[in-house]
């Protein structure tokens, strides 16, 4: 046909290729509904059977997106009682350590990562056999091996996407350039056992995070079956991957968030939470009160400086892969360290200041570099340091904490989050299932486009004519041309 213009043909062909190259899970003829129907004589009872089969098929297939890959092996209710990798099951097959492991090896604690649906992976402690932990290579091999042999149980809400029928063992581990691990995995028929982009990403997250748990290791280059370049589902893996390549967040340029202050003596109390305020969100709150008591709640502001520094864990093992360093003038009190060990927050360290300005330092030891933000709340004065959030609800200068994606809401949707928007104006709209805009509005955040983030909170009324599936879009209308920027879209169901 030559009905189309050349441009149309070009776009059409690209679309055709895109359709062709999709990963789909095909049902063989013998398992098709048609085959089942042909197997039976047509009759009245057939329709009922068909409906049940359809319902079952739909249920199974929906789950197949992610949930079919539950914990590998039989769930053990007592994680600490999980058997240790036996010598034969120990990874690093062919390495001297594995071969010489004693029948009842001593245990050492290590850490592996499990996948979560839509969220970055989460770390959990695992016991591996001592003797597989002498060199960085052995430790990396034994951690990946712990995922393959499923000796570690995933924490609640997480799962092990590593399929031991496909990933059979770690063939070799080599560290090059000081910070890159080359890991060769024996993969049955080159099939890594994942289907679709979400599973592929989850598997890469587990492998990359687990391998880079080794101090000083930042990147992982995966190969399969003796150094071959792997294709995991449709993704060709031919470059070393860092945690930041797979965690699923938009990349945030390096930045420093600073405020000027009046430098009066302060007392601080620190609280932290992980995955409590919103899924994937780590929050550290530094509540400040003036030591002298003669200032009102709005009468003081600390001088503050926050930035993330890449840490050398071999020199400073308790400061994480990345350290979010928050300097605040005037805070008094003794040095302290709090171990958290919940991904991505490993610990919080406090060091009081010894200079004239009494510049105290909070160090948040983090597992990776993911988007972070600082907001200042008043009455009482609090410094809110947020790390992460749901990756799909996090844009460069906008984050939505509630409502949760896919949640059921009433006709009056309560929305909270943080933004750095021009003139502090945060815009929103609701779209119905057909994509039509059915409501819109804007709200004002507590700060505009400053380095410090503003918080916002508003209610979005859903028109009475709209029900079912809606999408809430929260965005900044561009100061230049009014277009949507920093947009976060949250699918919701209106009850």
């Amino acid at each position, binding site marked *: 046909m030559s009905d189309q213009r050349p441009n149309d043909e070009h776009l059409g062909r690209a679309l055709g290729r895109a359709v062709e190259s999709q990963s*789909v899970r095909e049902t063989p*003829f013998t398992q098709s509904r*048609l085959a089942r129907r*042909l197997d039976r004589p047509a009759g009245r009872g057939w329709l009922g059977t068909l409906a049940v089969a359809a319902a079952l098929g739909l249920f199974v297939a929906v789950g197949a997106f992610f949930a079919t890959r539950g914990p590998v092996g039989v769930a053990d209710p007592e994680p600490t009682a999980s058997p240790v990798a036996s010598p034969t099951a120990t990874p690093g097959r062919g390495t001297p350590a594995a071969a010489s492991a004693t029948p009842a090896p001593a245990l050492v604690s290590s850490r592996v990562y499990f996948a979560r649906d839509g969220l970055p992976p989460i770390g959990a402690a695992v016991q591996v056999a001592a003797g597989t932990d002498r060199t960085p290579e052995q430790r990396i091999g034994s951690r990946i091996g712990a995922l393959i042999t499923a000796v570690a149980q995933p924490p609640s809400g997480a799962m092990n996407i590593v399929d031991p029928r496909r990933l059979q063992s770690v063939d070799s581990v080599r560290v090059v350039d000081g910070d890159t691990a080359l890991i060769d995995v024996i993969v049955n028929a080159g099939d890594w056992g994942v289907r679709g982009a979400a599973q592929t990403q989850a598997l890469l997250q587990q492998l990359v995070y687990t391998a880079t748990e080794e101090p000083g290791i930042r990147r992982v280059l995966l190969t399969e079956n003796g150094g071959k370049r792997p294709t995991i589902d449709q993704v060709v893996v031919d470059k070393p991957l860092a945690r930041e390549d797979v965690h699923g967040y938009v990349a945030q340029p390096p930045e420093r968030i600073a405020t000027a202050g009046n430098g009066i003596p302060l007392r601080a109390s620190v609280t932290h939470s992980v995955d409590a305020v919103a899924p994937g969100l780590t929050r550290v709150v530094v509540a400040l009160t003036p030591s002298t008591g003669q200032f009102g709640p709005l009468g003081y502001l600390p001088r503050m400086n926050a930035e993330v520094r890449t840490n050398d864990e071999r020199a400073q093992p308790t400061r994480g892969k990345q350290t979010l360093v928050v300097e605040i003038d005037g805070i008094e009190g003794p040095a302290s360290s709090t171990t958290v060990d919940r991904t991505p927050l490993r610990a919080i360290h406090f060091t009081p200041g010894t200079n004239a300005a009494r510049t105290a330092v909070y160090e948040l030891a983090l597992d990776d570099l993911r988007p972070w933000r600082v907001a200042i709340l008043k009455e009482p004065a609090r410094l809110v340091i947020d790390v992460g959030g749901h990756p799909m609800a996090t844009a460069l200068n906008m984050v939505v904490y509630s409502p949760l994606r896919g949640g059921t809401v009433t006709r009056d949707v309560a929305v909270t989050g943080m933004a750095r928007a021009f003139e502090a104006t945060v815009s929103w709209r609701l779209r119905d299932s057909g994509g039509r805009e059915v409501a819109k509005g804007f709200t004002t955040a507590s700060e505009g486009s400053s380095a410090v983030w503003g918080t916002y909170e508003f209610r979005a009324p859903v028109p009475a004519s709209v029900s079912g599936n809606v*999408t809430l879009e929260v965005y900044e209308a561009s100061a230049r041309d009014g277009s949507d920027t920093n947009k976060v879209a949250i699918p919701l169901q209106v009850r």
Partner: protein
Amino acid sequence: MSIDWRQLYELEYPRLLRALTAMGGEGAAAEDAAQEAFVKAHTHGLAGIERPGAWLLVVGTRELFRDRRRLRRERERWQSVGRRPGTAEGEFDAISDRADLLAALRELPERQRGMVVARFFYGLSYEEIAAAFAVKTGTVGATIHQGLAHLRRLQLAGHLARGAMR
């Protein structure tokens, strides 16, 4: 069990599933609609179907869009696929371009989606599409042209949005 049905299934099912997945964006709904299309073909009888491929595509498309409730899951699925880790690596870019295109396709009106896929994935002529969708040939040309123009705008917007977020 008739061998003709098996041949038809093995010939037509893979592309039907891909077409419906592209149009609907989610595996479960597409699979359901594809399976249902073959069952409907059996009910209808092969003798009465002139072009089984186009017939299955049209019936499958109708099945896919019949249940609007499926759309919610499709949307979520595509949002999880649409955004890639910010690697800027070549292979991720190629895949995210395709994802953009498929996500844009899903934004088209249903009629446009069906005809664009029939034209460019099934390679059907305007006349064949007109016969299958029971519309005039001129309508097919106009619909596909609108669909592509729409697709181009959406794809560009998606591309720019993703670029801006890096």
